[in-house]
């Protein structure tokens, strides 16, 4: 995979001559391939390869981005020269140190040698024996993104990141009732990270447990549900909650209104930064530097070194996710949170791997302390409002806790709480961490970037 870096040099030269105060060029060569098996039938394969360029300029204090995969110098120069500004908002960027670095993710088994089709076929065969499984769709793919970033301040950042991605959808049926689950798997790194056997076991366990809920689950009355005060949340739930009700509201562009008409705003405003969000047990981190994680990156799309960000420390909001523009607004340095899903879209402030930091409780201790309540292991449906003030997680697998022990499954448990009630209710946090893969959407046009969500289990006690 070859990138002609001279195009980036040309971009910076033309931009400087056209009077831009700042310019950057981002070249990306991407290759990906994958396949699908739906209802036991192979549904085709795909392959994609190409190179594109994104240019961002600040000229007359206005931000302009231009992207193309037609890499002829004349057209690129015309686009740069034709921009003179517009009547609108001033753009200023934080001062950052120029970097000249490389980042390459190691891979023992090259993604070009991936055996995804064979692996999906084996999974499909393994699932064929599960009678309750009414519908199954298996999608898997691999890819590699090679990028070169350079800017008018002297930065030059070269990255090569291979990745694996899979989505599995299962619907089980028991009598007239059905239950569904969509699971994602993903890593950055070589194909050795795709443990097909482990994924198969996860799928079998998911189908079996959903069927168990249908077969043996109880339906609680509204009064019984209302009386539940203690809820033990598995990492799948604490993770999605950390992502939705902490990570998103801590994105500085939402706080300052730039996503108001798209991905929404935030309960945080410039006037309440540093507010208490949860109990002192709550610590939430966003860390893109976790090696081989789905949300991994070492340098963001503005050429800034990435680092872990503590969003919530002991229950108090501490740091916002920022790019250079909002770092300037906040009077800080960028913390390297600027990402795009491809060269063709503008980079936005995004999460990476967002999680509830582990505490010191054993899982049994969480159950014991709960005494009676609910153990919410996984969710089906979730959503949250525009300001991220109240969310809902409908239990896929939920179980009654009785005298500190996990008992029969519950079919109709839904956790619907305000953000403050949710995080202030955290009484104990578990020792063990688990991570779940997802795709996070934002922007116009909507961009999906790979993330993980997870962390520790927790006991929440509501009033």
């Amino acid at each position: 995979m070859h990138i002609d870096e001279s195009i980036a040099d040309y971009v910076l030269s033309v931009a400087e001559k056209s009077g831009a105060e700042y310019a950057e060029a981002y070249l990306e060569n991407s290759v990906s391939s994958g396949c699908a098996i739906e209802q036991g039938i192979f549904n085709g394969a795909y392959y994609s390869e190409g190179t594109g360029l994104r240019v961002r300029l600040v000229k007359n204090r206005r931000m302009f981005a231009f992207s193309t995969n037609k890499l002829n110098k004349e057209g690129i120069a015309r686009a740069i020269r034709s921009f003179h500004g517009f009547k609108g908002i001033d753009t200023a960027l934080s001062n950052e140190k120029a970097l000249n670095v490389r980042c390459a993710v190691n891979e023992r088994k090259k993604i070009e040698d991936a055996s995804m089709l064979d692996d999906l076929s084996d999974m499909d065969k393994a699932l064929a024996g599960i009678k309750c499984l009414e519908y199954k769709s298996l999608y898997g793919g691999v890819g590699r993104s090679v990028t070169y970033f350079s800017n008018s301040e002297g930065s030059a950042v070269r990255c090569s990141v291979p990745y694996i991605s899979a989505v599995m959808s299962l619907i089980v049926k028991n009598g007239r009732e059905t239950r569904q689950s969509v699971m994602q798997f993903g890593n950055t790194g070589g194909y050795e990270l795709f443990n097909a056997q482990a994924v198969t076991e996860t799928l079998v366990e998911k189908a079996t447990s959903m069927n168990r809920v249908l077969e043996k689950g109880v339906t609680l009355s509204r009064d019984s549900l209302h009386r539940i005060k203690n809820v033990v949340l598995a990492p799948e739930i604490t993770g999605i909650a950390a992502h939705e009700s902490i990570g998103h509201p801590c994105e500085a562009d939402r706080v300052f209104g730039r996503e108001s008409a798209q991905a929404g705003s935030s309960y945080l405003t410039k006037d309440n930064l540093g507010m208490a969000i949860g109990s002192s047990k709550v610590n939430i981190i966003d860390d893109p530097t976790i090696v081989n994680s789905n949300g991994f990156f070492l340098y963001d799309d503005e050429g800034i070194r990435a680092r872990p960000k503590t969003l919530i420390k002991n229950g108090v909001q501490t740091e916002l996710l920022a790019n250079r523009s909002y770092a300037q607004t906040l009077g800080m340095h960028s913390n390297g949170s600027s990402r795009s899903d491809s060269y063709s879209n503008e980079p936005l402030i995004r999460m990476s791997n967002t999680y509830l930091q582990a505490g010191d409780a054993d899982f049994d201790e969480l159950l014991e302390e709960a005494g009676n309540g609910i153990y919410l292991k996984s969710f089906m449906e979730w959503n949250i409002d525009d300001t991220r003030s109240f969310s809902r997680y409908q239990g896929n697998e939920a179980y009654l806790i009785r005298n500190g022990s996990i008992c029969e499954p519950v079919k109709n448990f839904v956790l619907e709480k305000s953000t403050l009630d949710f995080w202030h209710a955290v009484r104990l946090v578990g020792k063990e961490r688990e991570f779940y893969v997802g795709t996070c959407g934002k922007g116009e046009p909507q961009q999906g970037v790979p993330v993980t969500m997870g962390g520790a289990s927790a006991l929440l006690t509501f009033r």
Partner: protein
Amino acid sequence: MRACKRAQLDDIVASVSTYRVVYLKITNSSVDSIVEKQGQSGELFVSKDKKVFFTELKTLNRDGVATSIRKTLQMMPKLQLKEDYYGIADKPFKHGGAHSYDRKLEQISCDALSDLANEAINSAISNGATNVAGTIVVGVSNHELATSNGFSSSAKGSSITASLRLFKGSISFQDAYASRVLKGINLDTMAKRSAETVSMTNRTGRIDRGAYDVIYLPSPAGSLMLNVTHAACMGDVETGSMLTGKLGKAVASKDLSIYDDGRISSGVASAPFDEEGTKTQRTSVIECGVLKNYLHNFSTATKYKTKSTGNAGLVRPRPWTLVFNHRKSSQSIDALIRSIDRGILITNTWYTRFSNYLTGDFSTVPRDLALYIENGEPKYAVKRGMHGLEHEMVGIRISDNIMRMLRSTERAANDARQTFSWDTDGYFFMPSILVRGAHVTVA
């Protein structure tokens, strides 16, 4: 096409799209930034002995295409059979009608676009809004398609879409318009109407959980109904959708019809032919309450012994534009409000998520103004906030079922228009609708 033909493949579909799209973003009542995307993309679909392969050609020079084709041919032998593959559309190919195209959108400048945005912002502010956010997007494209069965044609597209979200105090309102021609959207009028809506009340109050009659304005109504045409696509039907196994059955109010329309002249998503050259058409998905058709490409239609509906998608059929029709749709939105004893006017939703796509169970969150209605009169905006610790209300959520909605949509207003939602991928010609008995929860 020539390179693929030499390889003696069974079916070949090659397409090339050339495009220019400009996105303008409005933040805090000012133009924030402009993003321009130009380029060319290609797609290649080939089959040999029921092995099918799809290639995205991101680099459309001779070397890039040759490399992609070489890799495609190398990978083909390793594939398994797609046992239910029955080929691509064949002659005779009928020519679809022309759609509106606006040359003015080809070279619209950043200056001209920012002038349009600033006019809309000024109109919104002068009519009472205190803050404006939004996007204006203009695009032009040329799509060329050729197949090994002899189809060869091209289609031009142009569009302008605008989405404005206005704020006044604690109330917000968002609306979206779409057109194929520049004159199809009057941003000044759009901003003025939105400002009037966001200013219609400054009173807020709470409601209790329970069943409410709900009026959805066109954008949220279409956003929810679009799930119907997606669920009617044969790929979804085969992998389990809420319409699976219901063909020919009554699934909706007998007054309600839903069409998938790829040919509607003013439709932003319209095209004269689908991805294998079949002429696009208007297909009745639901006709007078009965599920009439699933949406097919040639292969799925052959599999199920029916005709293509012009919805290829080569691997999976896909919907075009949703057109909603209700026999009882002569009344104004005000008349719909007057017909409600206890209800809510929902102006926007987002985060619609299914707990079960097979049954149609979902929940969705009203994002902006939700107006509580009592005895036919608007009373107040439903309160939103984040006062959880004091156990004050923070907002509402609708938990419903698409199939129940289809049966309970009693009437529509006379305000149908083309619109869209940030939360949904697609366009729809949709009126406001009145749905009886939706379950509302309160947090």
